[in-house]
């Protein structure tokens, strides 16, 4: 079991990452709070060693994705998020970025997770394939389709 200091450090370092992944899957702040508690409790109870911060971050992303999936399954949540709820989720985001975020969040889960990991976390397709436990070619396909959808939704040229 990890110490209070270690847990506090991990929360400060990775809370934003966990929060962003939660936003991709969940609809409310209380759901996000539940996932936060689950993820960091698993972190505290995990006795294995991390090779470095990158390894630690990848482990937390994997755990968060799994926790979100389990949560969605357990409550028979729908796989897509209604638009009005997306607007609520992005209410705190400045207006000039909210349309992009809303477009990403309106994608199916399998696309938006890849988009986040690729564009924000800057993982390669190979790394994403390991995190999502998918074939690399599948990841390429998902990313290509996601880009096409985003272009359609956000108006084209500027996304080239």
């Amino acid at each position: 079991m990890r110490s209070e200091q270690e847990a506090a450090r991990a929360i400060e370092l990775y809370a934003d990452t966990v929060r962003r992944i939660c936003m991709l899957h969940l609809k409310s702040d209380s759901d996000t709070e539940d996932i936060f508690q689950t993820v960091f409790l698993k972190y505290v109870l995990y006795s294995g060693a991390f090779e470095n911060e990158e390894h630690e971050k990848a482990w937390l992303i994997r755990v968060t994705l799994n926790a979100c999936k389990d949560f969605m399954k357990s409550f028979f949540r729908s796989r897509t998020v209604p638009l009005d709820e997306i607007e609520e989720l992005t209410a705190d985001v400045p207006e000039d970025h909210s349309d992009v975020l809303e477009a990403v969040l309106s994608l199916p889960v399998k696309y938006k997770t890849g988009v986040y990991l690729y564009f924000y976390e800057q993982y390669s397709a190979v790394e994403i394939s390991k995190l999502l436990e998918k074939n690399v070619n599948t990841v390429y396909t998902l990313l290509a389709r996601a880009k096409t959808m985003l272009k359609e939704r956000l108006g084209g040229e500027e996304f080239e």
Partner: protein
Amino acid sequence: MSNRIYEAFDCVSAGQDLKDKTKAYLFQTPKHCQSGFARYAAAAACLLFVLLGGAGYHVYMTPVAAISIDVNPSMEWEVNSLDRVVSVICYNEEAENVAADLHLKHRKYDDAITELLTSSEMSVYLTDNAAVSISVAAEDEDRSIRIQGRAVECAGRHCSNVSGHGGTASDRQAANQAGVSLGKYKAFLALQKLDPSITLEEVSGLCMCEIQDLIRDYEGQTAEYRNLQSEENTGAQENNGEACPVGQHHNHDPNRPHTHHHEGQ
């Protein structure tokens, strides 16, 4: 595109409130500071719950009395200390047929008697003023008397020819060993007093009406014989006192009632 997506996601962050709540959950909730004593107390409470449940089940399922109900169907119910029927033992095919369609177990014995005697399955055996014999055996005599009184009263609401009999645990054991119900065994004992040569095999196939008829026949003959003996004694006194021994008379009695096995009533 990558820059815009990056900047959009970069605007999202976890609030301090969320971080604080998570920290509080991880380090201040009882499950992380639960003492050894609390764990032992919880385990002890669980154990106590299981033990109490087991003891309750044992008490519930332990019979403290047996009620034998005999018409032609012959069955015996074991009753627990809460007056509920915990097992139904059928001693003939008729009883099995009747009990198969009724829900007698786990009901209070008086409710079960009402269900039995008002059922359509039983009605075919309760025609022509059929005799209903209710025998009760229990270790506790007061309980036996109470159950017998209540059972007979309850049965009397549905049938006119109801008789109640008491018995002991040893009577019941002997009846069970002989493969008959307590009620039939008690009737056999009554009959055997009147005719020691009669066997349980002869009685076991009879319905209660037939057994009661036999008892009445024997009692009638005995009374008749006593009258005769009284007259003969008077005559013997007159003729120097020569009397006919009872045993001899009985052994040579050509009018001993025959036992018949009727298929139902």
